[in-house]
């Protein structure tokens, strides 16, 4: 390494570190505020003088946050399972079967990626009212039960499976659905993992649609509930920061476990474009 190389890499690290601080500081401040009492909340201390879990206890005992946490979990888990099953099934059928209308169906499904959700929420809302789905989990979940991006992703992976393998299973008398569930699905596990991670994150963080259909606090998801401690007259910042922390913690854990797949998945979505 030459001297100028060392010098540039020194400046590179300084530059990167400054940005790393900018990226991380809001998280630090959020957690720090969540451990402060209402007396200390306006102090600019990064480490609280009297750190306490009182805000967390309050939120879990005297608010509907536990319920909202459960709601978010139900919505994210159920939609993810549905997306994994149906997206794989559609991807597999489009990749491995020959039938009239195949290309048109694929193009039509892909074309839905261009429709902005904002355009669909009004018709969805009218549907929910007419079908009396108001205040149900189903009303929050149904728009996300299948994802077009997932169909695209799974079709790519499914087409790498050799046809001979499927034919061998057919000769052994495995049913068509059995081939899909017991032979194909285990082979595409990495793709399923990527799809599951992104779908879970997306549904956990979703805001606009839950805000529209969850009209009583009973049906709120965490993002809809975070602002609960803010009113026109008084904003309980320590409780809001605690709520924000509660909605973030599962994702941070998730992120630490699946960081490799997440980074790879994002990179993949870009290079496809």
């Amino acid at each position, binding site marked *: 390494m030459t001297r100028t190389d060392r010098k*540039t890499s020194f400046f590179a690290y300084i530059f990167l570190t400054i940005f790393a601080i900018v990226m991380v500081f*809001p998280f630090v401040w959020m957690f720090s505020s969540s451990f402060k009492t209402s007396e200390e909340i306006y102090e600019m201390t990064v480490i609280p003088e009297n750190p306490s879990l009182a805000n967390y206890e309050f939120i879990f005992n005297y608010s509907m946050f536990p319920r909202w946490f459960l709601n978010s979990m139900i919505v994210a888990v159920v939609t993810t399972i549905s997306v994994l099953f149906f997206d794989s099934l559609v991807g597999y059928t489009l990749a491995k079967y020959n039938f009239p209308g195949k290309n048109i169906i694929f193009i*039509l499904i892909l074309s*839905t990626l261009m429709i902005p959700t904002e355009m669909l929420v009004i018709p969805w809302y009218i549907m929910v009212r007419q079908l009396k789905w108001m205040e149900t989990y189903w009303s929050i979940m149904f728009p996300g039960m*299948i994802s077009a991006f997932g169909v695209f992703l799974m079709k790519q992976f499914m087409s790498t499976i050799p046809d001979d393998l499927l034919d061998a299973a057919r000769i052994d008398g495995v049913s068509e659905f059995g081939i899909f569930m017991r032979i194909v699905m285990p082979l595409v596990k990495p793709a399923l993992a990527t799809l599951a991670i992104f779908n879970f994150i997306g549904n956990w963080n979703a805001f606009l649609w839950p805000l529209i259909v969850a009209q009583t606090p009973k049906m709120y998801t965490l993002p809809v509930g975070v602002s609960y401690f803010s009113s*026109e007259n008084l904003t309980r910042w320590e409780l809001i920061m605690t709520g924000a922390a509660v*909605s973030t913690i599962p994702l941070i854990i998730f992120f630490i476990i699946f960081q490799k797949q*997440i*980074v790879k998945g994002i990179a993949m979505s870009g290079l496809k474009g």
Partner: protein
Amino acid sequence: MKISQKRIVTAYVFLAVPLVFYIVVRFYPMIYAFWLSFTNWKLVSPKQDFVGFSNFVKLFKDKVFMTSLWNTIKYVLFGVPLVIVISLFLAATLNRVKHLQWFYRLLYVMPYITPLVAVSWVWRWIYQRPPAGILNNLLMAFGLDAQPFLTSMNQSLPAIVVTTVWVNLGYCIIIFLAGLQTIPQEYIEAAKIDGATSRQSFFKITIPLLSPITVFLVVTQSITFLRIFTQVYNMTDQGSGGPLNATKPLVLYIYQKAFRSFDMGLASSATVILFLIIMGITLVQLLVLNKRVQY
């Protein structure tokens, strides 16, 4: 029945539920939204008459709509260049360091996967007036004046842009980095032997080779900024897009018209306009990618 016919039947059985889903939950609502945009339907009244383009005329005469349209354009014009330039330089810097690359990348992408609502409230907290807001306390510690940020007509929109850039940086960095790693190192080495400075090789080799990825990111980020809603709803007073509509984007206007005033016809017309803008940008991307950026 022949085997091939049996396969066709199986394929359609497998696709039955998804096809119904796509028709009922995607295509029918989209057509319905187009239809609604030509009616005067308010959710609370049974009246649903075809009124032609009069909703669109009404929108373009509505000052609040024009303000929110202009705000949306401002979000795109401020946000996209910022996020592209900063993420490109960070990715290029990351690509040069040998150690801890994964660690920095991890920290940078964290905001992107965090719930946007939580992020918005944290930044709203950071932007508070003194003595509460940490950013103002920092400014004052450096001897600068405290700023009103979110309560100011001029600063509130840029403040929300900064938060959004902070959120989207990690996504763009990862994609740029993946692109940078596909550029053969020999190109850079060859330029170096020919006497090019590292700045020259960055601007003359790296940036041109990255252009398909840059186009992709410009388009996806433009669409992200066009659809901005959650940040504004959570960072402004009572989700109003204030002060005095200074931050209100198109989607918030749509939300208020549809779910506060229940004017479904007018709100649908506004969604049609949003849809046309997004379509336009996507088509431009296809054209540009096919034409210019082949190397």
